[in-house]
């Protein structure tokens, strides 16, 4: 069976690699190429942040949390508005102090949200098939969306992390004019990396982390050694909520907090398919591939196609991730790092 699949996988890999390197051979400036590449990588990091939340929940409970995007939006809204309102409520100075307190409060709110979701949605549906769970989390998305906008408001809000929006240019000596990097993206990458390291430490070094990994491996075995399943799930969802908060903070700072962030939920699906549903490194690699692929195809593939077929503008990024995921599903459904499923009758 494996031999049959290797051919298509290799073909897909070859096509992707060719696409990646093609612009270098068709005359674009190397400096520009690297700019786009880096921009893609950093966008990818942000996707990975959202996908991380998915993977955590899926690993521990087998639930596909379609609501992760809504959680990101909800968390970002909470953070933005609390940071705005706290100075008025308790006289704390605006800026970093308010933001820090708002972060703590928002984290608490996300834990509460996680607890409610686990209680109301997950526990009753635990025996159902994944599609029902998917649709239930879709319901959660809609609910959080409406609820969030009711409580926090529906305008676009800013999260001011104090990072300047000015771009920097690096390596001006090597490449003409230097390579354009956004400081925000840089900070986002640092934050994401820090988060991943934190999570890795949590999972490897703490008792709770070990319990979580046990649950992810085998629910029944974990229960039989006394690990409280429901409590674990609340913890997992809280961690996912925390990750959502960080992702919301980073995305919100970059784009402003608005509804399109919820659309990120959908985008993270292809990321997880590429990386494998149960793999944290997979979420990262998958996010990077999608980020780079989207940017590259939009910038380098878009214009030639527009000219070739007389298209009304680009927009390849809208479907690139999904079509790539579809191709992966055909040749390697378990993703790059995921586990294979063997079906027995």
């Amino acid at each position, binding site marked *: 069976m494996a031999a049959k699949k290797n051919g298509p996988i290799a073909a897909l890999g070859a096509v992707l690699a060719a696409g990646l390197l093609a612009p270098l051979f068709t005359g674009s400036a190397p400096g520009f190429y690297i700019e786009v590449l880096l921009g893609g990588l950093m966008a990818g990091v942000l996707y990975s942040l959202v996908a991380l939340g998915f993977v955590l929940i899926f690993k521990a409970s087998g639930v596909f949390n379609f609501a992760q995007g809504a959680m990101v939006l909800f968390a970002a809204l909470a953070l933005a508005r609390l940071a705005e309102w706290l100075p008025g409520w308790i006289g704390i100075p605006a800026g970093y102090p308010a933001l820090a307190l708002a972060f703590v409060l928002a984290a608490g709110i996300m834990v509460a949200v996680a607890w409610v979701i686990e209680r109301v949605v997950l526990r009753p549906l635990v025996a*159902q098939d994944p599609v029902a769970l998917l649709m239930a989390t879709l319901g959660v*998305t809609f*609910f959080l969306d409406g609820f969030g906008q*009711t409580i926090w408001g529906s305008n676009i809000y800013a999260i001011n992390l104090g990072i300047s929006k000015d771009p920097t240019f690096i390596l001006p000596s090597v490449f003409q004019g230097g390579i354009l990097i956004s400081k925000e993206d840089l900070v986002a990458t640092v934050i994401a990396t820090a988060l991943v390291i934190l999570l890795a430490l949590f999972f490897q070094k703490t008792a709770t982390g070990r319990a979580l990994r046990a649950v992810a491996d085998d629910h029944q075995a974990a229960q039989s050694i006394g690990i409280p399943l429901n409590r674990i799930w609340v913890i997992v969802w809280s961690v996912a909520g925390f990750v959502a908060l960080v992702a919301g903070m980073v995305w919100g700072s970059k784009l402003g907090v608005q509804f399109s962030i919820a659309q990120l939920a*959908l985008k993270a*699906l292809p990321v997880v398919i590429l990386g494998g549903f149960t793999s944290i490194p997979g979420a990262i690699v998958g996010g990077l591939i999608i980020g780079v692929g989207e940017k590259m195809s939009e910038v380098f593939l878009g214009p030639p196609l527009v000219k070739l077929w007389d298209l009304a503008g680009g927009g390849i990024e809208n*479907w690139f991730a999904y079509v790539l*995921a579809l191709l992966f599903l055909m040749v390697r459904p378990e993703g790059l790092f995921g586990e294979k499923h063997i079906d027995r009758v």
Partner: protein
Amino acid sequence: MFYRENGQFKSSYREDQQLLGIRQDRWFIFALIAFAFLAVPYLASDYMFRAILIPFLIVSLAAIGLNLLVGYCGQISLGHAAFMSVGAYAAYNLVVHFPQLNFIVVLVLAGFISALIGTVFGLPSLQIKGLYLGVATLAAQFFIDWVFARVKWFTNYSPSGSVSTAQIDMLGWTVNTPVEKYLMVLAIVIVFALMAKNLVRGHIGRSWMAMRDMDVAAEVIGIRPVHAKLSAFAVSAFYAGVAGALWGFVHLGSWEPAAFSINFSLNLLFMIIIGGMGSILGSFIGAAFIVLLPITLNQVLPVMGRWVGMNFSTAFASHLEFMIFGALIIFFLVVEPLGLARLWSIGKEKLRLWPFPH
């Protein structure tokens, strides 16, 4: 007392297989249809036709299509509105390039084109299922969105990217008043609903349900998964395509690609979850719910606001809508996965016994 089957015996298998076996049901349905055709045109206002009845009927058609695929055949489609858009654009281009065609012919052809596309995008279902298939259908949604937004030929090179339709001509009868539109759509939807009911109780419907319930056992008794799954995708997309063409031509008049976005797809999914998966009646119930809820909220909220002394904005109405949808989805999935249709049939069963408790 009223809803008894006493004295209604079936003396042939043909009778037993009737769609409406109980005489009371038959009377009820016929009365309903007569009311819809004869009374409603005089009772309803133009607003009711435009804002409620016509969208409800068209959307029910799409919901039936989705239900056939998801509720009866157990597949998943997160991007069904894309097939509606295929139907709409196909109809548009047919009318632009072959203006002499009868509108019914246009609808059927648009449906076939959509069925073809649906079959193609249904091919992944032969290899993957559940969640993964869902992602494949998302790919269909976004890719088709892009095609209609960017490939200028489909919009007849319109500079704004949106298309508009002329009046509908059917065998010399121009359909342009709300009443006429309503009657045409009503007739079409009734015929299609009947077809769906027939398919579902025939051997193709049973093969769909067999795939949904136990695909390995289905294969063992000789059902071909390829046939079952692809036929489900094809028929489902056909329904969506016709509904899309009607939506574009009759309800919207003019549209841009965003008219058939992922939000529409998710709404369709909600309709069948709330209304009842695996039930034609459920598709109607769900559609009614999704169409009526926003309108009801918009009317009721200001009134309720006045009672409690708060000013509820229209933005709040739409947020509340989302919250209610979300809560109901969760409620139905947890409590009654077969939706309102099941509650309805439980109610009917109790009615058959009434006034006795059991």
